């Protein structure tokens, strides 16, 4: 149990950290590619038009060579999305009663069948494909370049700042949790699932204390260089 949890957390941290470094695609085409990728993501999420699906796929495939050093992380991310979508859609597969194909289709029942395989696959494909254009673009160029571009737009600076903070904090927190667990593990000599459960459960307290301390220090650092009431506020 602990091994699987650790593996998942480390992979999740790696996937996010891969975004926070630079990709091989430069900053220059971003003002064009960023809105395009967001439009494609929106189209796949909200319509059933296969052309938009194909366009999203083509866009993502074009971005792939630029994301080459991080293809493994990108594959993991896509796999996570597919697995989570499949888990959520599992009841539909079994009951075959409804098909949640997207926001526009939310309340439209599909023709009943004993196994709603097409509905299941449709949902999983949609959930996996919808974020791919923006995700591959971010992997191809790196979040810092995307955020830097967004920082130049006054009204997006706050959002970009908050997203950047999350991307810095999530991997740090995940790694930190398991370094706390490892420190306990080294001095615990019991065996079995009970030991693993105890290790994880007792590490949570330390984790919360450490994260609280870190967030307080970070808050101070932001406050120290913020001259207005709200961080990321922009001079008018």
């Amino acid at each position, binding site marked *: 149990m602990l091994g699987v949890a650790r593996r998942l957390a480390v992979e999740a941290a790696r996937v996010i950290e891969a975004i*926070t470094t*630079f990709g091989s695609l430069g900053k220059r085409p971003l003002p064009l590619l960023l809105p395009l990728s967001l439009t494609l993501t929106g189209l796949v999420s909200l319509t059933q038009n296969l052309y938009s699906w194909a366009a999203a796929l083509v866009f993502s495939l074009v971005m792939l060579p630029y994301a080459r050093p991080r293809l493994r992380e990108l594959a993991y991310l896509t796999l996570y999305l597919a697995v989570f979508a499949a888990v959520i859609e599992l009841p539909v597969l079994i009951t075959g009663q409804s098909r949640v194909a997207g926001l526009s289709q939310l309340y439209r029942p599909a023709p009943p069948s004993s196994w709603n395989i097409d509905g299941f696959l449709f949902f999983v494909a949609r959930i996996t494909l919808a974020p791919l254009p923006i995700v591959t673009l971010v992997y191809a160029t790196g979040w810092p370049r995307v*955020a830097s571009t967004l*920082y130049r737009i006054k009204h997006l600076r706050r959002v970009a700042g908050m997203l950047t903070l999350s991307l810095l904090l999530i991997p740090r927190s995940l790694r930190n949790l398991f370094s706390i667990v490892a420190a306990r593990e080294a001095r615990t000599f019991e065996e079995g699932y009970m030991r693993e459960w105890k290790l994880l459960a007792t590490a949570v307290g330390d984790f919360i204390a450490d994260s609280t301390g870190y967030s307080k220090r970070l808050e101070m650092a932001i406050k120290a260089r913020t001259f207005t009431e709200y961080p990321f506020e922009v001079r008018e």
Partner: protein
Amino acid sequence: MKPLLELRRVFFRYGKRSPYILSGVNLKIIRGKVYCIVGENGSGKTTLLHIMAGLLEPEKGEVLLDGKPLKEQLPRARRLIGILFQNPETMLFNPTVYDEIAYAPRQLFDEGETRKRVLESARLLGIEDLLERPTTSLSYGEKKVVALASIISYDPEIILLDEPLSNLHPERKRRVLNMIRSLAAKGKAVVITSPDLELLDNICDVTLTLSEGRLKEGG
């Protein structure tokens, strides 16, 4: 000369039942001087700097900026005070080094002036080559210098540096020391903490020792 920042009988402790970290600290900070505060680990140096920056509030006593209570002038007064944290890891929260240094100037100036200030600060500290790098990819020493550049870029009047020379290689250390000297020459007040006076290489105009919650003159 009228002090820029003044602490009057400042008491501070973390929690009602904890012992006082600072008990009756008095300090006057004057323009153009370098103040060095030495003391053992845990003596309260960092807490003192956080109080001077208005990040912590004293339990008793007053902190005055230009003769008026600092608390009443926040957050705008923060542009007059720059603080370098002991651990630079917690100071960096922007995507690239450029954005990190530009964070404060962007609140005060237009993009052209911001760029000018970022480049000037980077040049002073010899980190022009780092500007496009993500902050997550920097070494500890690089983070420390970037954090310092992010302060000098908005030209504060009081600069509080919490152990600025620790974990820096000699070349970076030399640049930081030169920068401190030039800041003082320009009339800025600089306060530096260090566990050891020897590290500070004779740049101190006033040396103070923090021990048992009290500040005494001399190293």
